[in-house]
């Protein structure tokens, strides 16, 4: 057997919990993530569940996994490959071998490696008994048996007892990383307050796993991952969809507006709808519409009525909403549309991630219909950018599209709970004159935003709609020059937002041969790849990442000019690169595209950067 590679001191570790969909792996993983957060580590997680709601039990297609990378340094991705796999059955082992680093540690429930389960996992021979796992350190733990032993006096039925196997496994892993059990025990007590025997069973299994580890070889392998240097404050783990929902809640609270969400269920955006449906307690008005079009139109109605208005969707829904988004553009109403991107076209790979709706966000409406486009980069900064989307929509009287994606929506990362007083102010342009002098398309001077007046406000009664508006008065007109003027005004209004945006940053050397460019959720892998290469001594490259897509930050062109070449990494066929080319013609751009429904691995990007640097060296 190979020597374990997880040896102290290490700075980051990737753990993957895997089992049948009925084995509670997502809960196990998220409890482990919680404990990592509590231990002060930075972390990022990713779930990986079967596409089918009820895949056959014990088979490879029914395997559900949860991966977390945590460490004493900044962690931007859930990790390319795994250091420690917890496999609850043969199928979980079979499904995950390809994700393991050489020399990785595997903890298996040896009791589950019986003939029936091996067959379901398509093993002819027991991999615990032949040399299939010779490259790994395998710990064969009798998890099922030990769990039964631990709970045998509780008078529970076998099914209930077997459901606690995951907590026994979690106890083992807790011991490995010297994690305290208290907070998890407290969690059980709260979660199963009405079923104290279940709370107790879970706690007992957890403790049994922990004690079992103490008395075995695992004991010798225990390791300590130091806490990361994170900014002071209160933290919690958050996934991208919850973060979007909460960012919008925070913006509503900041402005004293009621939040209206009008949406239609769609994977992978539905969780935003779910979370806000549960937030009626904070006054959110949720409308589950009959279709995507109704959802966006109702959002337009809610915006007209003066609420902070949100609609959430994914690519196919965004397509259906495009006509109405044009109405929001010409009506110049504040509206936030979140597109949690998934792999397309059409139904595509509905549960897989992609960044291919960028063109759609930028251009996917008929006529000249500019709006603000933002993209979040990590699960936790979905909060910040949802808040920002609401802020910009209201300050500039315009629709805003926020792009996230499947990867961000289901991933978790620690979020520093932003205290309300730290949130930037939202200054909705205020009309100060007399009602008689007000006109529906009158604009505030600096940013050209229209003043938002809505039903209930006396003497501001007015009509808006999809027909072209006369400048200022908003009356209908077909005047040729007015149309041209209005098209330019709407474009200029969006362009001026750039004045407000933070400067685009470069990490590493601020000039040189190669600038690594990415946007949205590729941040994690690209930043990690870049940092590691920098540490390895590559110093002729910089790194920049975009959250503001339209408009781009004002210094973008100047920043690009300091580098010979750009390497644009994105999960589509080159849309951002093409967009940059239209904004800054003459750029020397190389594309690095991955279109496999999966996020970039750090190693892939490192490899690509190395190759590019070599090629450009060779090219002179």
């Amino acid at each position, binding site marked *: 057997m190979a020597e374990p590679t997880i040896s102290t001191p290490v700075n980051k570790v990737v753990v993957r919990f895997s089992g049948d969909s009925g084995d509670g792996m997502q809960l196990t993983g998220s409890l482990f993530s919680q404990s990592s957060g509590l231990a002060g580590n930075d972390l990022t997680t990713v779930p990986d569940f079967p596409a089918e709601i009820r895949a056959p039990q014990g088979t490879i297609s029914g395997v559900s996994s949860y991966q977390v990378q945590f460490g004493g340094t900044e962690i931007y991705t859930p990790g390319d490959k795994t250091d420690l796999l917890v496999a609850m059955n043969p199928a979980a082992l079979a499904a995950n071998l390809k994700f393991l680093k050489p020399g990785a540690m595997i903890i298996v429930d040896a009791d589950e490696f019986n003939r029936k389960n091996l067959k379901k996992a398509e093993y002819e021979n027991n991999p615990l008994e032949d040399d299939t796992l010779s490259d790994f350190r395998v710990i064969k733990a009798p998890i099922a048996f030990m769990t039964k032993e631990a709970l045998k006096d509780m008078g529970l039925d076998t099914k209930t007892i077997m459901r606690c196997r995951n907590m026994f496994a979690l106890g083992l892993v807790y011991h490995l990383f010297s994690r305290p059990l208290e907070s998890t025990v407290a969690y059980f007590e709260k979660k199963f307050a009405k079923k104290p025997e279940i709370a107790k069973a879970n706690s007992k299994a957890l403790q049994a796993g922990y004690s079992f580890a103490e008395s075995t070889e695992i004991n010798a392998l225990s390791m300590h991952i130091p806490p990361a240097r994170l900014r002071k404050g209160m*933290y919690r*783990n958050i996934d991208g969809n919850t973060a979007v929902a*909460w960012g919008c809640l925070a913006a509503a609270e900041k402005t004293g507006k009621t939040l209206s969400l009008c949406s239609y269920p769609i994977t992978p955006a539905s969780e935003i709808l779910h979370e806000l449906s549960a937030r009626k307690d904070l006054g959110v008005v949720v409308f589950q519409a009959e279709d995507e079009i109704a959802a966006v139109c109702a959002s337009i109605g809610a915006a007209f009525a003066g609420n902070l208005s949100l609609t959430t969707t994914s690519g196919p829904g965004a397509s259906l909403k495009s006509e109405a988004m044009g109405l929001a553009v010409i009506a110049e109403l504040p509206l936030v549309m979140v597109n949690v991107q998934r792999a397309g076209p059409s139904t595509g790979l509905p549960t897989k991630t992609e960044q291919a709706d960028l063109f759609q966000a930028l251009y996917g409406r008929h006529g000249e219909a500019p709006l603000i486009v933002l993209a979040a980069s990590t699960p936790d900064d979905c909060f910040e950018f949802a808040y920002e989307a609401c802020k910009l929509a209201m300050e500039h009287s315009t629709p805003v599209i926020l792009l996230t994606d499947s990867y961000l929506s289901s991933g978790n990362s620690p979020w520093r709970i932003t205290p309300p007083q730290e949130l930037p102010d939202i200054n909705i342009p205020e009309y100060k004159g007399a009602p008689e002098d007000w006109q529906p398309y009158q604009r505030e001077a600096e940013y050209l935003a229209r003043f938002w007046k809505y039903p209930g406000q006396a003497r501001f009664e007015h009509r808006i709609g999809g027909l072209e508006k006369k400048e200022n008065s908003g009356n209908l007109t077909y005047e040729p020059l007015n149309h041209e003027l209005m098209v330019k005004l709407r474009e200029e209004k969006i362009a001026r937002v750039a004045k407000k945006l933070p400067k685009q940053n470069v990490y590493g050397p601020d000039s040189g041969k190669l600038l690594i460019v990415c946007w949205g959720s590729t941040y994690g892998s690209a930043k990690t790849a870049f940092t590691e290469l920098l540490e390895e001594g590559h110093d002729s490259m910089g790194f920049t990442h975009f959250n503001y897509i339209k408009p781009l930050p004002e210094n973008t062109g100047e920043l690009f000019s300091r580098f010979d070449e750009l390497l644009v990494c994105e999960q589509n066929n080159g849309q951002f690169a093409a967009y940059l080319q239209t904004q800054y013609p003459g750029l020397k751009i190389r594309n690095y595209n991955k279109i496999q429904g999966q996020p970039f691995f750090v190693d892939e990007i490192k490899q690509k950067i190395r190759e590019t640097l070599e090629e450009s060296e060779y090219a002179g």
Partner: protein
Amino acid sequence: MQAEVKPHTVAYDRKDFMTDQHVRWCPGCGDFMILNTMRKVFADIGVRKEDFTLVSGIGCSSRITYYMETYGIHSIHGRAIATASGVKLANPGLSVWVATGDGDCMAIGGNHFIHAVRRNIDLNIIIFNNRIYGMTKGQSSPTSPEGLKTKTAPGGVYERPFNIGEAAIGCGASFFARVPDKDYKMLEETMHAAYKHKGTSVIEVLQNCVIYTDGIHEQITSKETKDENQVVLSHGETIRFGKDDEYGLVLNGMKLKKEKFGQSIPDEAFLKHDMHEESSPFHLALARMQLPEFPVATGILRQVEDVSYDAQVYNAIEAAKKYTPYKSTSDLFMSGNTWEVK
């Protein structure tokens, strides 16, 4: 509790609801009558001007938004009801009206229509039914009668048309009325009743398009034939029609049958109109009555009390607020597993 529409204290005149926009319908179009009546009703109804929102889709009907001095949205084709639903939910204190046409509402907007009616959201929907696409110049609509020659059915329409009343009641409408455009008194009363009704009120106006379907409702609405061909329903009264009110309706098995009063059938056997009857088959049967076998029913066919969707939404919000541990976003964000980095 749900915000109620605030009553106003100012006295309005119908002129207060006129805008400075030039009305662009064809002279003689039935839409004028609807506009004038709407202005009168809005002036009289007891709602402050700023608390009205009128939402329309696309088509001749939907131009009305620009002619009413209230808040208004001229939305996109088919989406008036969806847009209006967002307005009403965002601010249930508003009196929200929808102006739409047979194409806008029953074709491209059909999905929103059936779902609004199903939910019983408090919108007053006026469908201008001229049985044709006017603005796009004469294509068949879902209410075009079989045989009508149109640009898209030069040999005559062979699709089966929608009966709007049947569609609405079939979807569970709590209020449905049918009104000829000429009968401004009936329209006025019906709009008042629709305003009072908490829930979705559907008013089908039999609207004449002088350009493409001139006279299409003539048999029902003209002075000469309306007594025979139209039965004006009045709640609680025996249903009567004919030159001398000599006809009524009786049940024959599971069907309606036209019968003469004072002959073999005893008076008690003739049907009385009960618009508040919760079970809908009889209202459906009335909605389905067609020439030449039956007269066409007008007036309020159905008005039943039921909780409105917007009230339900706000009741749920109030209930959730009462029992939640979260009074602010901070309470929510700090709930569950958190830790401090010092």
